[in-house]
């Protein structure tokens, strides 16, 4: 066949074949902003990884410095701290050591107060343990200063990054999973399934997001897993709507009909044929959600519904900020703000670039 020869000749000049993903990656690599954003996000993920593995930030609970030490670079810019001398402490303790004094505060005599003996014992014990191990080795090591309990803000913020990213990433992943599964079922099968799931979706969206978040977290116990659950359960709706529309659109496409014609099952058509054609949207949706959830976590923790007391996160650190700021201790808030805005901005820019790279038609 003569046509055969031309086809073969055409083919020889073709460059190596690339999948759509590879083409997308190529486009992303040419986008400087996108690439920078990608590196920043990767750096944060590495930092968080180090945090989870205990390689960095694991000593954030240690009280390694005097309270409210300003960052090393800004030693002279913090408000002056009053150093307590040993004499001050002694004088304060002198007041408290006698049983009479301890009971006086309750307005009862020592004989009437059933707790008097215990209180006195406790106070003497406390006095014995008094010289707390607040002996910082070297204050200049605290790049970001210390908090009100003398903990290293750098360690705290690394641990916070780990927590916030964990919450953001896994919350977004779970939300995407729920949203995609329900959206796929709803969009692909339509009819009754769609009616039922849409009803479910409407109920969820009719309640204000924040209220739902607060209700969930109030009912469940505090902790990272709760926060992740709460966020996934409240933020799947956007993905659901997106996937429902996509599956509706794709199920009528000829390639899906062709798959039906060769005998592919419903499951195969849904997940082997359609899903890979919408995953680029999911990737964008995932990064959007991650940013949103990191911010949500900060809000939740700030309001006191977030991670437990034994954990820290950006939100938890920000929760300490109002009290500190009143006294002029600005560095904890500054550190969190810096980290968070850097990550969120980089993530948002990466999302934009991803969208451009994976779906060039929109441009």
């Amino acid at each position: 066949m003569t046509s055969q020869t031309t086809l073969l000749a055409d083919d020889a000049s073709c460059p190596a074949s690339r999948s759509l993903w590879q083409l997308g990656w190529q486009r992303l690599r040419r986008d400087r902003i996108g690439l920078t954003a990608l590196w920043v996000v990767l750096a944060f993920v590495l930092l968080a990884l180090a945090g989870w593995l205990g390689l960095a930030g694991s000593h954030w609970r240690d009280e390694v410095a005097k309270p409210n030490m300003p960052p090393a670079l800004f030693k002279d810019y913090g408000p002056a701290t009053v150093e307590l001398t040993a004499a001050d402490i002694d004088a304060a303790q002198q007041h408290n050591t006698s049983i009479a004094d301890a009971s006086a505060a309750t307005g009862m005599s020592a004989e009437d107060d059933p707790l008097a003996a215990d209180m006195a014992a406790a106070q003497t014990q406390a006095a014995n343990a008094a010289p707390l191990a607040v002996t910082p080795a070297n204050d200049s090591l605290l790049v970001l200063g210390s908090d009100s309990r003398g903990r290293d803000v750098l360690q705290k913020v690394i641990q916070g990054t780990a927590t916030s990213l964990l919450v953001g990433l896994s919350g977004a992943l779970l939300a995407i999973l729920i949203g995609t599964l329900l959206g796929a079922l709803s969009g692909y099968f339509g009819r009754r399934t769609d009616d039922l799931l849409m009803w479910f979706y409407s109920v969820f969206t009719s309640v204000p997001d924040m209220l739902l978040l607060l209700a969930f977290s109030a009912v469940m116990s505090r902790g990272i897993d709760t926060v992740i659950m709460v966020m996934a359960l409240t933020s799947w709706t956007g993905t659901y709507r997106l996937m429902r529309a996509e599956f509706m659109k794709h199920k009528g496409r000829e390639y899906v009909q062709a798959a039906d014609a060769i005998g592919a099952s419903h499951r195969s058509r849904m997940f082997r044929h359609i899903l890979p054609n919408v995953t680029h949207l999911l990737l964008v949706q995932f990064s959007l959600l991650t940013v949103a959830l990191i911010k949500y976590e900060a809000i939740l923790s700030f309001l006191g519904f977030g991670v437990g007391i034994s954990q820290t996160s950006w939100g938890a650190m920000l929760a300490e900020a109002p009290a500190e700021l009143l006294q002029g201790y600005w560095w904890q808030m500054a550190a969190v703000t810096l980290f968070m805005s850097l990550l969120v901005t980089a993530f948002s820019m990466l999302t934009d670039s991803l969208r451009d790279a994976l779906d060039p038609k929109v441009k």
Partner: protein
Amino acid sequence: MTQASPLLSVRNLGVSFRMESGEHFQALKGISFDIAANRTVALVGESGSGKSVTSMAIMRLLPENNTEIAAGSEILFEGRNLLQADRRALRALRGRDIAMIFQDPMSSLNPVFTVGDQIIETLMLHTGMRRKAARQRAVALLKEVGLPEPDRKVDAYPHQLSGGQQQRVMIAMAIACEPKLLIADEPTTALDVTIQQQILQLLAALQKKHGMAVLFITHDLGLVGEFADEVIVMRHGEIREHGPLQQVFTQPQDAYTKALLNCRPQLDSRPARLAVIDDFLQDQPYQTPPQRERGYTAGDDIVLDVQGLCKSFESREGLFGKHVFHAVKDVSFQLARGKTLGIVGESGSGKTTVGLTLMRLHQASAGRALFNGQDILAMSPGEFHAYKRRIQIIFQNPYASLNPRFTVEEILLEPMTLHAIGRDHAERKQLAAALLERVGLPRRALQKYPHEFSGGQRQRIAIARCLTMKPDVLICDESVSALDVSVQAQVLNLLQDLQDECGLSYLFISHDLSVVKHISDQVMVMQHGQVVEQANADSLYANPQHSYTRQLLSAIPQGWPQQGGTRVA
């Protein structure tokens, strides 16, 4: 006619596009031509020939960010270089002196404004007419382009009009300001044959009446013969041939033009193999192959026997109301082994629905389809699964029917895995490679993705996918309609070879009567979901019984006047 000062003169026009990879793609390689006032020039070429780029360049509508126009290019309109004109001058020119009609009226009209508003806007913008006067003029224009009830239709929204009526509105808008040059970019490609003929007649009449020059862009040489004065044949960004209509058709100088004229199936002959471009680019002259006899004979073995097939769609209307639309009404036919049944009809005739219903991609409302004596429409999905491999479909759009995330290998292996054809992966891969070579693609193509192939190559992959299952019946749903004429000939030849080799039976659905005539033994004409006529191909074309069939046949573009066709206008 003043040859001295043409209305539009294109000189050395070179256009290249910066590709995403940074490479340059030369779309136009320095072309030159003139359009004199009051003349119709046809620009003919296949996809990628640069014909649309030329029209966009004249209108200065090419995207500015990635287009480079070669130095020394000139587009002179009445002596003024459009390439150097500023935005304001261009805006004044477009619509008033140069107007354009696009291919798809559906997407060229703004759906949220009435068609009247859109014409009025053009008039008020360019002629400074007041609203009331513009409205009267709009009604007059709609009357001129032959829209029924122009007084009422002026307030209609685009979706309330049919495709042909929408194109009439587009034409009315284009001629509203009495342009000197009208550019028609494939104005009838999206329309049915009968409508296409009406629109062409209208354009020809308007050209005469208003004394416009027309640049008519098309991929179909057959249309050109209807009313062009001059023909320009383009390929790969170059002008291959330029001359008066008669000369180009009767004494083509260029091999490519000869090929184009020959590779389109003709109504009056049926060669065993259609000519392809390469036949003419070779050194030895092209020999016309022998004719092929077609038609059902008495002893034919019937593979598929369809009796009283009906399909209706229900849509909700209001709260409890239901609207039933009968897409296919009582269709019966028999398909013989190794033969082809052609189904022709215009859009909305239900021909595609017949195909999809037989594949059970739609659920039939009534009727039986006996496949080797078994009613495939009454089977449970489980039982039908085994029959799926025996009856296959090739869709119209090769760009949409292959999953873009699969490699060719995955595409070809999937049906074999599903139907347990071949012992193991290695054997299946071997089979896939053999089939690819059979349809004219190299083995290397296995590792590639669909987006790396051209339309014709993709259609070959789709054919190979069907062949993996060794079907008995192949439904070709407009399978060659989206392809260029030369590629169409290649694919039609391939289908013919496969039929001769494997004894496949085709159900060939198409709106193109010449293609159907070429490939079919028997032809079935459908209108509004019903079969109006069914007969052996030769007798149906020679002696049509039904008035609708006659109407369809008379609307086929006749090529050039010498061939006995009647010239319009």
